[in-house]
């Protein structure tokens, strides 16, 4: 049984943390890998990165932004409730080269995905400088955890309500100018990853991004998650989710993420206007 043992709300209730018992997955999971969760019989299969794992306790932690019908349903689950299915660990683990000078850039809930990567890199003896950003102070997540996982932490907000005012790319530019950076890791909204990759390309710094295409099975069986990387078709779930940011066709990914916009809106609205408890809609 995949039981929720801990639940937290962050960023004004727009981001939720669930710690869930999943002992088999917890012992196997490595930084960068994800799981697919399905709440109930009629539920959708939703991919989420494992932000943390505790092999001794046999738990995994996911942190997700509430954006639509299914994440709304997940939000309604309380401590003691269960997910009907959790599948994983899926995807390739992050490729970590020890002893490198790394800049980690995270935006929005991407910070949750970035956390295990930064932590893993620091553990492997890399020097980790992290830059995280959010639209405003209330939406910022995991600041403390990121501080622990990094040697140096910079915080930006778009409106200047906390940390430095502006986009993460501004701090990144200064760091790149200063030189000595071996690799950049960027996780966040697709436009952010796109702009980070464009910038690092100018400086010739290898850049890894974590992509979130729409998925069904997560095992390379459906091809729904295909992304174009270096003019080749790749399957996000098995070839990724991490790819070379300089090769990714971000514009295509943005269009593909909108594939079900209309359906999702209908489903979400139906749920809301019927005023039903999410567990039953």
């Amino acid at each position, binding site marked *: 049984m995949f039981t929720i043992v801990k639940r937290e709300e962050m960023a004004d209730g727009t981001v939720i943390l669930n710690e869930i018992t999943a002992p088999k997955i917890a012992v*196997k999971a490595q930084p960068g890998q994800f799981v697919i969760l399905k709440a109930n019989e009629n539920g959708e299969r939703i991919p989420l990165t494992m932000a943390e794992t505790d092999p001794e306790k046999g738990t995994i932690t996911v942190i997700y932004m509430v954006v639509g019908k299914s994440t709304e349903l997940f939000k309604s689950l309380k401590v003691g409730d269960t997910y009907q299915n959790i599948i994983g660990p899926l995807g390739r683990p992050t490729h970590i080269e020890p002893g490198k000078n790394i800049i980690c850039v995270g935006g929005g809930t991407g910070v949750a995905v970035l956390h295990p990567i930064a932590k893993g890199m620091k553990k492997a003896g890399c020097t980790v400088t992290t830059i995280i950003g959010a639209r405003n102070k209330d939406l910022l997540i995991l600041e403390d955890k990121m501080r622990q996982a990094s040697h140096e932490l910079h915080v930006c907000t778009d409106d200047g309500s906390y940390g430095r005012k502006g986009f993460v790319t501004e701090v990144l530019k200064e760091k790149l100018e200063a030189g000595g950076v071996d690799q950049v890791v960027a996780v966040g909204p697709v436009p952010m990853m796109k702009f980070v990759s464009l910038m690092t390309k100018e400086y010739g710094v290898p850049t890894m991004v974590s992509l979130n295409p729409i998925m069904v099975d997560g095992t390379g069986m459906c091809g729904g998650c295909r992304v174009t990387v270096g003019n080749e078709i790749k399957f996000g779930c098995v070839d990724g989710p991490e790819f070379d940011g300089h090769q990714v066709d971000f514009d295509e990914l943005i269009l*593909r993420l909108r594939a079900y916009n209309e*359906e999702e809106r209908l489903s979400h609205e139906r749920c809301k206007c019927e005023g039903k408890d999410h567990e039953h809609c």
Partner: protein
Amino acid sequence: MSTAKSSPRHPMPEQPPLIRAKNFEEVPQGYTPEMAIAEAKRCLQCKNPMCVQGCPVGIDIPKFIYHIAQGNFDKAIGKIWERNSLPAVCGRVCPQEIQCEGKCILGKKGEPVAIGNLERFAADWERAHQVCQLPVCEACTGKRVAVVGSGPSGLTVAGDLILKGHSVTIFEAFHKPGGVLVYGIPEFRLPKEIVAAEVSCLQAQGVQLECDAVVGRTVSIDELFAEGFDAVYLGVGAGLPKFMSLPGENLVGVLSANEYLTRANLMKAYLFPQVDTPIPRGSHVVVLGGGNVAMDSARTAMRLGAEKVSLVYRRSRAEMPARQAEIHHAEEEGLHFELLANPVRYLGNDQGRLTGIECVRMELGEPDASGRRRPVVQPGSEFVIDCDLAIVAIGSGANPLLTNSTPDLPLNKWGYIVAQPETGKTGKKGVWAGGDIVTGAATVILAMGAGRKAADSIHEYLTWGW
């Protein structure tokens, strides 16, 4: 007997095409006992029955048909079960015209006995009446077998080995068991309730089932051995969608048949928004391919409300590999055939959505390696089909997820597992494989046949050694 020879075959009642093309209920509705007896009486009870040679698992066809003719339906199903543990499935989906019925002597002059329909009748009758006893398992041997994949081949291995007294656990990557029978073949051709009944029957006999277990990720083959399994059977199917690498393939609205059918069948997206998984509903849908997968996709699209569904196939109708019954059903339901045509690129709008497919006309040239005439492009014959959804059903390959994580498992150059044809033994000790992951995409009954042989070999190994 001469009168029997000339009597026509009893057709199975079907939902009328225009009605069924709008629902997901099963198309053929089954024989009544009277129809089944009448059809069974057409069988000549041949001394040297050709039909049996055409059945890959060698069911004693005249015997089970004899029991039906006598009204002894319980005896009929017992006879079938001796060779085939999934008769309700095979009666519905076997390509009978090239197997059992294709060899039936009556087919030489007239119409063959409806063997598939009769097999289905016996199985459905038993499911409704539950008179037969489950076979009894032999005394527990203390040996443990892991079966990876719950498609027809995995289910067959599990069913055979549990009877021999071994402890069996099936590991399935998806959240539901059944393989292609649940995620690929649609409800209107194979109701999911039938697959579920077969699986619960195995569970009642003691087979353990672990869903959500992706072997190669959640657990590796070597870890299964370390956990105490004595043998492992790999029946993971050919789950890798093929694309054609055409320009525009990543436009929104171009889906693999695997994705489309998985959404529709496994996730029940045809009920969206009552269920949460969406499925694109095109108004003009084009399906690329000519096999069962293409037919299933096309007929699903019709049922999801498409105004027009076209099937683009590069050869002619005679070469289509789909079951004859499905081609016929699809045509009755209004499928438009665009034969001797091949896509060259997808066209899209500035939103990255599909708007059409450019195709070329083909003509049939010399026969190729498969004995079918090879399609050749007619120069300058480009034309565009406007459409908003394209489903690519041109076949599938070997999914590398499991095999990549098992480096000491020998594969052929296309990534399929190498296994001995007579035993299913692979190049890794204690590991067997069968079904689509060995042969490439084939049929339900061949996957079951491979499972049967492997089960015998596994039993021998557990008794005597490798």
